């Protein structure tokens, strides 16, 4: 097995900053894939990219008492794809993943080719929430001819990473913060009997697609998704028991799958053994790579380690620093020993 080391706090924050600021909506993951690769290549035993672009990094080989585990953190983010540029250079678009019009108004975007723009909206009748077809992107072009982007060009939202101290804010904390967790865990994982596949999956936001093929290829015995989840700790929010700063969340279910109860119990045991604060998560919405892993081949017992995140799918998603650190510790703890599910 390759070497292992802990990432220091400032290294971790720098890694997170780099990850969240890298563009990479579903289907356009090459840049983010390269960034991840650069950060893991000295610590993985074997790295492959599959047909859909999933980055699959193996650490360890399966020994007596060990299991083949797939840890999946999707590296794609939500974004927009241009469907039409009009005569005056304004671009219409289709959403890539779940986009809320309210979070677009006045937003700034960065295209994969480096072009930048802002999102405008047609006049609104009354106080109705506009539908996405009423929005457009203005890159400053004055005509279709001098527009530097055209049909098919892809952009993500653009906001710089913000360190508020205990809380960290950026676009694409969903799911680059989980990619950071996976990278840090891959770095820190000591010698152990398990064969762990850290998968940085693609196209989760458009239907959990990358994880389907990655899981078929890896053929794991246990699946563990890493993703963000909603919190219920802001004014008159939808009811949700997870809050920032109370520890990583152990997912019991979301609307795409029910976590295997044995996996849930295993995660609780490890958190208690390490004295890591944790929260139980029941999300009445949302989906993660867990679903794809569970349905692979003859079925895979699967769970998910979540980070609470405020304002998901807005350009200013917020997580808690201690939750991030605790999630890494919990994941490393889970993977570095024989796994016994009762």
């Amino acid at each position: 097995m390759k070497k292992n080391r802990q990432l220091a706090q400032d290294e971790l924050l720098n890694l997170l900053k780099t990850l969240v600021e890298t563009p990479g909506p579903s289907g356009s993951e090459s840049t983010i894939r390269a960034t991840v690769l650069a950060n893991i290549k000295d610590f993985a035993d074997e790295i492959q990219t599959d047909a859909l672009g999933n980055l699959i990094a193996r650490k360890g080989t399966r020994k007596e008492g060990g299991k083949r585990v797939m840890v999946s953190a999707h590296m794609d983010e939500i974004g927009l794809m241009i469907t039409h540029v009009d005569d005056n250079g304004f671009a219409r678009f289709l959403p890539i993943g779940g986009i809320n019009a309210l979070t677009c108004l006045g937003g700034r975007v960065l295209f994969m080719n480096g072009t930048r723009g802002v999102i405008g909206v047609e006049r609104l009748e009354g106080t109705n929430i506009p539908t996405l077809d009423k929005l457009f992107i203005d890159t400053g072009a004055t005509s279709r001819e001098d527009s530097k982007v055209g049909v098919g060009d892809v952009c993500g939202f653009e906001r710089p990473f913000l360190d508020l101290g205990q809380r960290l804010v950026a676009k694409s904390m969903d799911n680059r913060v989980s990619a950071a967790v996976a990278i840090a865990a891959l770095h820190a994982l000591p010698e152990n009997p398990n064969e762990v596949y850290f998968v940085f999956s693609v196209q989760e936001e458009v239907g959990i697609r990358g994880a389907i093929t990655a899981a078929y290829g890896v053929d794991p015995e246990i699946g563990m998704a890493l993703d963000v989840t909603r919190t219920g700790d802001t004014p008159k929010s939808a009811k949700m028991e997870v809050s920032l700063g109370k520890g990583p969340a152990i997912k019991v279910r979301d609307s795409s799958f029910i976590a295997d109860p044995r996996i849930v119990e295993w995660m609780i045991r490890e958190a208690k053994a390490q004295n890591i604060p944790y929260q139980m998560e029941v999300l009445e919405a949302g989906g993660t790579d867990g679903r794809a892993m569970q349905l692979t081949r003859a079925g895979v017992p699967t769970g998910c380690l979540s980070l609470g995140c405020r304002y998901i799918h807005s350009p200013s998603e917020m997580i808690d620093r201690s939750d991030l650190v605790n999630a890494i510790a919990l994941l490393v703890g889970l993977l570095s020993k024989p796994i016994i599910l009762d």
Partner: protein
Amino acid sequence: MTLNLKQHLKDLISAPGVSAYEDPVREIIAKAWKPYADQFLTTNLGSLCAFQFGTGDAPRPLVMIDAHMDAIGMMVTGIEDGFLRFTQIGGVDPRILPGQMVTVHGTLAGRHDLPGMVVMPAPFLLPPEAGSGPLDMKYLLVDLGLRPEEVARLVRVGDVISFAQQPMELDGETLAGHTLDNRASVAALTVCLETLSRQQHLWDVVAVAAAQEEVGGIGAATDPVKLKPTFAIVIDVTFASGPGSNGWRCSELGKGLPLTWGINDHPALYRALVNTAEEYDIPISREPAPSGSGTDAFDLQVVEGGIPVVEINIPLRYMHTPVEIVALKDIRRAGRLMAAFISDLPLDFMTTIQWE
């Protein structure tokens, strides 16, 4: 028949087993099937498979008979002042929930099954958007009758909630209760296994009490990869005509078994099953399912290279409420139809299962 069907069915519906949390009912089923099974297997996601080997020369083809064992239910999403907030597992119409008795399976201080009731807060405790009509599930609560400290000690977010309605024997040899969808079909599998154990059959048979059908056919999508059946028969419940339910999707209670005809069902298999029913005088009818049947058949059919499937339905009133009603006669018929069909299968049966 030595099996006491009524008692077996009551035992089945009295065991908790919400989707993904099927352990208690799996144990009951394994116990009931033990006398008729040569070998057991539990799949990765929890489906119980019982093999009854045939007498034909090896390698023998395998018929899979599938009935999902999981129940719809609810799950705790929050605890406020000793009251529980919850969400559904599987399809629950919130309109049947106020005043409904439930069991909360607490796990925080060991396993405790706690009696509770779903309750509606008074209107002034709700935001205006809750309205005066049926309350959305997010506004409902479960009251355990215990003081808040005790609830906090015993229950946590993620704990599962089952319906607690006791089985009731109604007139006309019918049984009412919760989770007859789909334990009635599991009971039909028991009847089939019991009947087959007294008969010769060339084919291998595997009875599958499938997991997690109510949340998306999860067992059905993965079990065949393990079992590799030659073809499959799926048993599920269907709508019985009754108050509020009439028309082409409904069949009469106690008057026979609808067989599904639609995109999920192989027409040659369907015809073979109809022939058997006619030969053994078991009343059947055709249930049209133009775009899919909403059962395990939907998922089984497209696993790997595809599996021929046919479906047998048991009429049931008030589906997905705690007062579902089935006729015991229909369960017996379903079990016997399967047993008759299977015991008559020649080893080269699949050569007749072709498309025109």
